[in-house]
């Protein structure tokens, strides 16, 4: 009987969630986008994804092995990082660039800052920005192999706006492996929302802000604004990258600030910046601002006496 009476501090009820179950949920949510990407861009995209995942896991394994730290590859976070990174790369990217990107993501952004939970920015998005700045191949996106399309320079150039919304929604356009098929990404979003892995705040405010700003910018044309949010990496960024627990605010208002701010910055970079796509820069920027957003939107503790002593 006495064995059944355990004394412990709160919280007493555990939801059963752990890092690995959440990461597995994210992997499951990414499966539709992965499959769609492999169908649209052909076998070469599978090779890119495999290279990213394998090198990410390997780098984390080797880092822990060499520095004699506790092995952390079992929590699947390196797999998620590798998968997200791969989905954010065009299918025609050289494999050695994938490996360098994985190195940046895992060793420099994650492990050197102290491993999972300690990184100040999202590893996959930082690696993508690194590669965007470093390699010219990133800006000349691969074209789908399943349909004949007119080769355009960038996914966000004027021509693509005239493409039908349906094609954009299904992802039959140039771009990174995982970012084009909006349908698959939305399926993933619904899964994550149902499983309560993420909340609606960041994806909705992020995409909504870009839509509203584009709506006014395109002369109150709802179709053009819709094409604007369906182009580029907005959906994969808003659903999977911006909602990373470690690098986004934990309060509801903080998430709204994060989403609106990142959306605004994406819009500004898209319309007025040098780069055709601004989602990754916007997310990276707000990753860095996250501690401050968290501070501004902190919950007031009840009965704590109001002002700080």
């Amino acid at each position, binding site marked *: 009987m006495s064995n059944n009476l355990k004394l412990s501090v709160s919280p007493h009820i555990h939801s059963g969630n752990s890092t690995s179950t959440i990461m597995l949920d994210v992997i499951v949510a990414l499966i539709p986008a992965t499959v769609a990407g492999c169908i649209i861009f052909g076998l070469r995209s599978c090779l890119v994804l495999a290279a990213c995942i394998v090198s990410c896991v390997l780098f984390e394994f080797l880092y822990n092995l060499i520095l004699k730290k506790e092995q952390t590859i079992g929590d699947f976070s390196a797999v998620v990082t590798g998968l997200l990174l791969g989905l954010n790369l065009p299918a025609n990217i050289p494999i050695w660039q994938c490996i*360098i990107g994985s190195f940046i993501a895992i060793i*420099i952004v994650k492990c050197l800052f102290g491993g999972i939970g300690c990184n100040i920015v999202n590893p996959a998005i930082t690696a993508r920005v*690194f590669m965007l*700045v*470093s390699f*010219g191949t990133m800006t000349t996106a691969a074209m789908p192999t399943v349909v004949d399309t007119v080769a355009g320079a960038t996914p966000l150039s004027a021509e693509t706006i005239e493409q039908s919304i349906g094609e954009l929604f299904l992802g039959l356009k140039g771009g990174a492996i995982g970012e084009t098929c909006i349908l698959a990404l939305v399926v993933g979003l619904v899964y994550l929302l149902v499983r309560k892995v993420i909340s609606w705040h960041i994806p909705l405010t992020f995409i909504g802000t870009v839509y509203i700003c584009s709506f006014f910018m395109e002369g109150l044309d709802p179709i053009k604004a819709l094409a604007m949010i369906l182009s580029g990496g907005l959906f994969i960024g808003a659903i999977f990258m911006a909602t990373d627990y470690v690098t986004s605010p934990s309060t509801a208002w903080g998430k709204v600030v994060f989403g609106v701010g990142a959306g605004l910055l994406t819009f500004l970079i898209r319309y007025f910046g040098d780069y055709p796509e601004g989602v990754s820069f916007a997310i990276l920027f707000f990753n860095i601002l996250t501690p401050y957003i968290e501070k501004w939107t902190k919950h007031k503790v009840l009965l704590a006496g109001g002002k700080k002593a």
Partner: protein
Amino acid sequence: MQNKSNMSVFLKGILKENPVLVLILGTCPTLATTTTVTGAFGMGIAALVVLICSNVFISLLRKIIPDNVRIPCYIVIIAGFVTIVQMIVKAFFPVIDSLLGVYLPLITVNCIILGRAEMFASKNNVVKSALDGMGMGIGFTLALCGMAFIREVFGNATFAGIEIPFLVPYKIDFLVKSPGGLLVFGMLIALVYVLTHGKAPIKREFSCAGCPSAGSCHTGSCQLKGDEQ
């Protein structure tokens, strides 16, 4: 501290108290001029010459310069030598002059030179000040060249302007840009920390012993300030 051997005064600037990688002084020229090995080497040598000359002169004049106006006096002395070096570089090494641009005259306000004047030359004799200047200058040059080597070879696939053919398809443009400079800088600081087995001063220790300038600073004035807070 005063009876430290001349050799250790010279050697400490190279690794143990490396001005760039341990004392974290003079970061602006470090980040700006390390995109090419030639530029970094030119910058290092120019700073080395100015550092030795200014250390010697400030050490000679340390009893004459009034304490209240010492910083303007140091600046005047340093600016004089920088002007001489700038004229020489412009006349004989126009390539380096075009690479360094505004950073050559900016040696005047380089933290390393003013820092060594304030921390070392104003308190030590001429021989030691000259050796300190030489050690610090060589340490600065080595750090700059190391950083420039990584950035130029891997970022631009060239070494001192000569193309390295087998690296050309594998260049990483990021390293030549300013964020890449900061990245390489951080990596080198970490490397030096590992090489010195963490004996390089730890910034978090707020005591005289934990200060990187402890070897040359005997006033303890900052320690007093810390206590007051």
